[in-house]
């Protein structure tokens, strides 16, 4: 099988994502964990871009690597966990359990994904449809038009969820007055 340049890029970023994720799980310093997780997010954003989801890729960098991880780092600094962190990796029994759980999940998902996948549209039609739609509405319109027409009720529910979470975060984190 001919390996194309896109596939080489995919394998490179997949290796980066898996390596960063493993480093994130195994580092003891919480700040190092956050940094490796940001690396994973950047690699996954590159893979989103390779899969043709350009807007999702940039939103991944802006929202996840930009906003959420800054929030994590801010809390780590606020609680002063970066300097005197304790060894928080559990013992051998837990490690075996974790490895077993990971292998079990990979096996389950491999069983689901491993067989011949149903492709009602064929192999080529899906990406071509998506490319036509994004040429019609633009890369942002590809997501924006369904978001504000078909998914308007979930969008409003998400707005309420964000409001509740903002109020909840303030109520939980403030000191008793």
């Amino acid at each position, binding site marked *: 099988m001919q390996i194309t340049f896109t596939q080489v890029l995919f394998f490179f970023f997949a290796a980066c994502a898996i390596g960063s994720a493993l480093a994130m799980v195994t580092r003891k310093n919480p700040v190092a964990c956050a940094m490796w997780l940001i690396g994973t997010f950047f690699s996954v954003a590159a893979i989103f871009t390779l*899969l043709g989801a350009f807007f999702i890729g940039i939103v991944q960098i802006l929202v996840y690597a930009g906003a959420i991880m800054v929030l994590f780092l801010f809390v780590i600094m606020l609680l002063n966990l970066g300097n005197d962190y304790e060894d928080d990796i559990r013992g051998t029994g837990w490690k075996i359990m974790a490895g077993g759980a990971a292998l079990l999940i990979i096996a389950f998902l491999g069983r689901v994904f491993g067989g011949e996948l149903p492709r009602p549209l064929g192999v080529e039609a899906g990406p071509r449809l998506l490319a036509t739609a994004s040429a019609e509405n633009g890369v942002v319109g590809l997501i924006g038009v369904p978001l504000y027409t078909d998914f308007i009720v979930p969008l409003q529910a998400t707005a309420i969820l964000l409001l509740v979470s903002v109020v*909840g975060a303030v109520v939980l984190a403030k000191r008793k007055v």
Partner: protein
Amino acid sequence: MNEIPLSYSLGLSAILFAIGVAGVVVRRNAIVLFMCVELMLNAVNLSFVALARMHGSASGQVFVIFVMTVAAAEAAVGLALVIALFRHRETLSPDAFTLLKW
């Protein structure tokens, strides 16, 4: 156009999800547990994007936006909980919070 097979993306998604699960089991720091949950959500986003591409519809990508919103809300509330718990116990180990344990 269709250069990356669907199974590659789904396999990467499964591996990242499994690493996140292993992290939740093996770590004892509440903040790192939240990071592992974020990693799992990201793996699910990856399979959403890959399947949306194969399906030829943008609905999967719209759902990624929703998942990201829920992840942001979860991170905000979760970190507020972490701050509140740290104030009471001076530690972040989940083993120290046993009030609701029977």
